[in-house]
């Protein structure tokens, strides 16, 4: 089971910061919930720059971002 973090409602740049911190503890991968397009784009860009494969799925009002090494 991948570790999952929820960044809903956090303002910039918290979603990326939370992702970065969690990845330091779980470098193999992470599931991230974001609730807006800005955070989705920022987190996705950060993950790709950090060398992760990224899959995004829409779940109602939120997005699930799955990052894998």
């Amino acid at each position: 089971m991948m570790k999952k973090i929820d960044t809903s409602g956090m303002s910039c740049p918290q979603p990326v910061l939370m992702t970065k911190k969690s990845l330091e503890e779980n470098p193999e991968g992470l599931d991230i919930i974001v609730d807006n397009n800005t955070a989705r784009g920022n987190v996705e860009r950060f993950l790709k720059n950090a060398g992760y494969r990224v899959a995004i799925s829409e779940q109602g009002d939120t997005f699930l971002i799955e990052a894998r090494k």
Partner: protein
Amino acid sequence: MNDKKGIIIAGGAVGIIAVLLVYFGNPANMGFCIACFIRDIAGGIGMHRAEVVQYIRPEVIGLVLGAFLLSLKNKEFQTKGGSSPFTRFVLGIVVMIGALIFLGCPLRMVLRIAGGDLNALVGLAGFVAGIYVGVIFLNKGFNLKRSYNITKIEGYIFPVVNVGALVLLLLAPAFIFFSEKGPGSMHAPLWMSLAAGLIVGALAQKTRMCTVGGTRDMILFKDMYLLSGFIAIIVFSFIGNLAFGYFKLGFADQPIAHTDGLWNFLGMAIVGWGSVLLGGCPLRQLILSGEGNTDSVITVMGLLVGAAIAHNFGLASSAAGVTANGKVAALICFVFLGLISYLNSEDLVKKGSQSLSKVNVE
């Protein structure tokens, strides 16, 4: 490079539109200045009586409505609120005081640099220093907690208020103030300013342009995205200024600026630090307020009240220089920023195991 194309084009457009607004009547190096324009609006609706800076700036209305309309179209309009609203309100006041000590928001700082005003380079140094301090606290767990989804109506009110402001501008009833001299009297034709605001509002909504975010993301994540937009504004408004013959290099006699380096530095340091805590520069706050983010609406209200305070209490600088009251206010702002930063940093102030950054969903 490809992912940055959009924001570089947007930044270029902002730079050129800013120079055109000056050509058509806006004050020099002030095609856009979110702080100055909100200050003028505060004057226009009588919240302060500084006679030279009173006008309901259509650019601001356009920015909000441009972001509002595009976010509706893109289905990105989301009504949210509840993330430490009063902290954000006071931070808005603080950022405005810093900006009016320097004489410009980060966007005008950029336009001043592109016009050859070297005082703005000193401001930039302060701005970066302020952002750096803010980032230190971000790394120590600073955050203003989550916002929540709230009723759509709440998010529609601010765009409607802006339509109301436009109506006031058009009807010009006796209780609205318009400067007869000074910067407030200098403005491009109403419809041109409004159109400029609408275009830039839409571009900024689309690209998430943020003057503070550029330096912040570079320090935090080595991410150049937002910084590319920031640089594009400088480059294109510089080219525009050269083309129109507005470029004038030097410290002395720059338009609506003073030469007190220390306070230019400190004023912008307040703006940089405060904006990092808020999650975005004054421009970004306006855009977010159009997208339904009521925490940003509260921040903009803080900017508005901050402008009134700055002029009523004699804190705002002028071409003559910084005021004694302004210096005292700046020191109070730094103390406030320090306390807010420290007290909201989870790694510095342990609050049991409730640390947000460590909460797992499952």
